[in-house]
C-alpha cells in the first residue's frame, strides 16, 4: 500500500519537473534549457537535503516538531560563514574558490552543530527543553552573526550579505557540483541507514537493547544532518518551516514512519512542493519570488497545528 502511494508521489514529482523544464520555452531554447537545468538541479538538491535532514533530525530527537532549522542550525551556518569572513578578511574570503570555501563552511557547521547538540542527545531531552534551546541558539547565532557583521569591514560585509535569507528564485549555481556530491553521498548514507533509523526512533534504551550503539550512531547522524543543512542553506539561504511542512505532509500521505518509505516520500513531497510551486508562481502567478514566503507561511501553520495537537494529547 505505501509502495503504491510512493509511486504516485514519484509520478507527481516527475510531472512537476517536466512542467518546470518545458512550460513557456521561448527564444534560444538550448540556452534557456541550460539555465533551467541548473536551477532545477539546485531545487532538487535543496528538496532532498531539507527532507532527509528533517526526517533524520526528528527521528534522532524523537519528535515531530523539531527540525534542524527550528533548532537554529541554519543560523549557525550563517554565523560560521560570517566567522570565516571575520577571520580571513573579506578579500581573502572573496579570493577563495567558492567550492573550497563551501567545503570549509560545511566542516565548520558540522563541528559546531555536533558539539552543541550532542550533549543534549546523549539522553533524549524533553521536547519543551529542546525547543527552548533551539530558540535560544537561533537568537544567539543570529545576534552573533549581526555582531560580527558590525565588526567587520563594510566591504567584507558585502561579500556575505547576499546569502542571508531564503530565495528559491535566485539560487547559487556556482556551488552546484560540490553540493550535488554532498547531497548524493548524504542521501545514500541516509538510505543505507534506513533500518537503523527505524530502531533509533524507538529511543536510546530500546535501540541499545537491539544492539545499536547510541552515542556513535547519533553523532554520525548529526554530522550527516549538518552537512545537508549546509547544502540547502548555501544554495537558497535559511528556510524555517519547509522541512516541517514536507515531512508532516509526507508522513500523512504514506501513513508510516518506516524510513524505507518515509525518506523517499519526504524527498518527493519536497520536490513536488518546491519545483511545482516554482513553476506555478513563475508562469501562472507571474511572481516567483513570493514562493518562499508562501511555503514558510504554510509551514508555519503546520508548526502551530502540530504544537496545538501535540499539547492536547
Amino acid at each position, binding site marked *: 500500500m505505501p509502495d503504491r502511494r510512493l509511486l504516485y508521489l514519484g509520478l507527481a514529482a516527475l510531472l512537476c519537473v517536466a512542467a518546470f523544464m518545458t512550460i513557456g520555452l521561448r527564444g534560444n531554447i538550448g540556452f534557456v534549457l541550460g539555465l533551467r537545468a541548473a536551477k532545477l538541479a539546485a531545487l532538487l538538491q535543496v528538496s532532498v537535503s531539507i527532507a532527509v535532514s528533517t526526517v533524520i533530525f526528528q527521528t534522532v530527537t*524523537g519528535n515531530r516538531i523539531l527540525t534542524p532549522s527550528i533548532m537554529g542550525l541554519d543560523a549557525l551556518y550563517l554565523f560560521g560563514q560570517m566567522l570565516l569572513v571575520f577571520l580571513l578578511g573579506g578579500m581573502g574570503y572573496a579570493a577563495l574558490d567558492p567550492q573550497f570555501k563551501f567545503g570549509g563552511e560545511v566542516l565548520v557547521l558540522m563541528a559546531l552543530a555536533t558539539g552543541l547538540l550532542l550533549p543534549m542527545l546523549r539522553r533524549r531531552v524533553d521536547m519543551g527543553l529542546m525547543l527552548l534551546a533551539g530558540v535560544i541558539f537561533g537568537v544567539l547565532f543570529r545576534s552573533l552573526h549581526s555582531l560580527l557583521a558590525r565588526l567587520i569591514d563594510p566591504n567584507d560585509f558585502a561579500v556575505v550579505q547576499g546569502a542571508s535569507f531564503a530565495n528559491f528564485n535566485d539560487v547559487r549555481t556556482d556551488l552546484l557540483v560540490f553540493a550535488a556530491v554532498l547531497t548524493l553521498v548524504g542521501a545514500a548514507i541516509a538510505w543505507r541507514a*534506513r*533500518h*537503523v533509523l*527505524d*530502531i533509533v*526512533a*524507538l*529511543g536510546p*534504551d*530500546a535501540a*541499545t*537493547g*537491539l*544492539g*545499536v*550503539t547510541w552515542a556513535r550512531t547519533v553523532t554520525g547522524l548529526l554530522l550527516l544532518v549538518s552537512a545537508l543543512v549546509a547544502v540547502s542553506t548555501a544554495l537558497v539561504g535559511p528556510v524555517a518551516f519547509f522541512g516541517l511542512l514536507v515531512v508532516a505532509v509526507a*508522513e500523512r500521505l504514506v*501513513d*508510516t*514512519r*518506516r524510513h524505507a518509505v518515509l525518506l523517499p516520500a519526504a524527498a518527493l513531497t519536497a520536490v513536488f512542493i518546491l519545483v511545482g510551486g516554482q513553476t506555478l508562481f513563475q508562469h501562472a502567478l507571474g511572481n516567483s519570488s513570493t514562493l518562499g514566503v508562501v511555503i514558510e507561511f504554510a509551514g508555519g501553520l503546520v508548526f502551530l497545528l502540530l504544537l496545538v495537537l501535540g499539547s492536547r494529547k
Partner: protein
Amino acid sequence: MIRIENVSFRHGPTNILHDISLTIPKGGITALVGPNGAGKSSLLSLISRLQTLQEGSITIDGLPVDTTPNRQLAKVIAILRQDSIVASRLRVHELVGFGRFPHGRGRLTEEDRAIVGQSLQQFDLADLADRFIETLSGGQRQRALVAMAFCQGTDYLLLDEPLNNLDMYYARELMRSLRAIADEKGKTIVIVLHDINQAGAYADRIVAMKDGRLIADGAPAELLNTDILESVFGFRMPVEVVDGKPVALHFR
C-alpha cells in the same frame, strides 16, 4: 549464566545498589520482587547495559557487559523496560519485527518472518498485527512489547514488570507462555513481579530486594513465608497452602 559480582550503583550522591552479588544459572525463571524503589529496575538496567556499570562486574555467558560489543550482546540478551515508550505510526507486526534487528540489521529473511509470525501467535496478537501501536490498549501494547523482546530470540530475557496493564486472563497467559519458553527452549528469564503469588506459582527461584540490597533468595516454597515477606514488604500476611502451593493472602 549471569554472574553479578560486587555491583554498586549510585545516582549522584544517593546509593541505589549496595554491593550486590548474584549468580543466575542458565535456564529457568527467576523472579525479582521487592517494594517500590528497591532497585530492581536499576539492577536490570545494569545487566542489560542500559546503565553504565560503575562498580563491580557483570558477565553473561562469560561476556562482560561493559566491554562486549553492543551488537553481540543484543543476540544474547533482550530486555523489556518498565516504561517503554513507543514511536507512533508503527504497526504491531513492524514493532515485533524490530526484535529481529540484531540478526539481519533490518533485513527480514523468510526465517525472520516465520519467527515474527510465531511471536505474534504466541502472545495472541495475530488479529492486531496490522494495527498502529498508538491505537492499542495498554495491555495490548504491553503484549506487543513482550512479543518484540521474545522475537529477539536471545537465550536471556529480562522483563521489568511485564504484567503491567494485563488483565487476569492475559497475565496468566503470559506467565504460562514464559514457563513454556523456559521449559521447552531452555531460555533464562529474569522477571520483575509485584504479584508475589505469580512469582510463587511460576518462578523456579525468587530473589527479594529492598533498599538496594538482596535480602532473600530461594525457591518459592521457602520464600513465601510470613516472616520473610514481612522483612521484604514491611507487613505481615498469612500464607496458606492451596493445591500444594503456598499462597500469600496479601490483600487482607
